[in-house]
């Protein structure tokens, strides 16, 4: 177990420092959330209607930020070679890398999401649901995002490629999470949206590492 916990600690520390870490990610998130009312107009009713959705989309975009370096650095400096030379399956290694990414950026973003939504005019009683959606959604973003990061290994301008590969995979969680928030705000049953978001997160956690490991092996050979 100590081998795996050492990897998780290292990956979280690296993700914490990558591209400025959670501070920059949350700063970017705040920036996007501030731009929206400037474009849409300051009327509180209009803003309140779009607040949960806007906070949610901004979250998806902010999750993309440090994703492209998830495998790229290890690939360039040879660490990925050494990570494969171990009894630990590469799939488990990829799982821990994404978990570290989520702990270092997904969790801080989940804390910031309710604040951003309320600042945009969402009702405060929406905050717990936004937090839950952001936590689950962040998990889905990190694990589907990892697939894009691994697939774009070795490509020039890999970051852009990662975004293009990953954004379609972000569609289902954005729909499910946005649906749950919208339903809650209009007093409709919302739990099915949250359940579907959870299901998508569980699926990406289960399938993502398999795809990432295959993409890494392909990039190395």
């Amino acid at each position: 177990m100590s081998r795996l916990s050492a990897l998780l600690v290292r990956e979280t520390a690296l993700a914490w420092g990558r591209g400025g870490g959670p501070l920059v990610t949350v700063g970017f998130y705040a920036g996007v959330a501030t731009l929206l009312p400037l474009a849409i107009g300051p009327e509180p009713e209009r803003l309140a209607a779009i607040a949960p959705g806007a906070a949610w989309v901004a979250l998806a975009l902010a999750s993309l930020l440090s994703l492209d370096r998830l495998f790229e650095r290890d690939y360039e400096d040879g660490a990925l070679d050494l990570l494969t030379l171990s009894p630990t399956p590469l799939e488990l290694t990829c799982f821990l890398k994404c978990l570290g990414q989520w702990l270092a950026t997904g969790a801080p973003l989940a804390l910031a999401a309710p604040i951003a939504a309320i600042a945009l005019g969402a009702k405060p009683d929406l905050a717990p649901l936004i937090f839950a959606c952001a936590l689950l959604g962040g998990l889905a973003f990190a694990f589907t995002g990892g697939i894009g990061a691994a697939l774009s290994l070795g490509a020039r301008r890999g970051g852009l490629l990662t975004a293009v590969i990953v954004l379609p995979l972000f569609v289902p969680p954005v729909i499910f999470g946005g649906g749950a928030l919208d339903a809650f705000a209009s007093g409709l049953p919302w739990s099915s949206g949250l359940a579907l978001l959870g299901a998508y997160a569980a699926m990406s956690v289960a399938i993502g590492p398999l795809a990432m490991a295959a993409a890494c092996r392909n990039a190395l050979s």
Partner: protein
Amino acid sequence: MRRRATLFKRLGDSVIEQLLLRGCAIRRGGRLLFEGVDLSLRRGEACALTGPNGSGKTSLLRAVAGLVRLEAGEVAFGDLDSAEARGEGLHFVGHADGLKSSRTAREELAFWTRWGGGTDGAVREAAEALDLVRLLDLEVRRLSAGQRRRLALSRLLAAPRALWLLDEPLSPLDARWREGFGVLMARHLESGGMILAAVHDPLPVAAKSLEIIG
């Protein structure tokens, strides 16, 4: 000295008894680098892999480590299953050393030791053997090329494994450390280890030689 002697006695459970290459060929980017490469390496033996730049020395080392696919031929590790041998039985030290420049030497050595299955005590011993103790608190980016290479090489000692795959291990080292690393290689061979090293200069230990002609 006694401490160093203990350093070399512990090889893990998955000890590779023999490395055997039969008729190996590698193709990179549509070009056949080499074909028909054979090699047998038993415990206690070293082999210097020579050949001009671009002949495929690094690719052959990576193929032994399972990082590059062979076009033809096979790599066998005695009776050991190749996944087990690659996972627990060999070390690979290449040009890309896997060290993160933003982390301290201590953090990196401690992580890679754990990853290789070594203990905290082994970290200290390895750092002493390569005279890294006073450098451990520096960020990797502050190290010179030779110091950085010594840090990469210290992983070999921190987690004992039978087969060392080394890609030009000596090139950034000064004369003193070329000799010093030669002593460490000799001890590894004495304790039943194996070394396959791509080099341009002769290895500082008695070794077979395998020339790759591109």
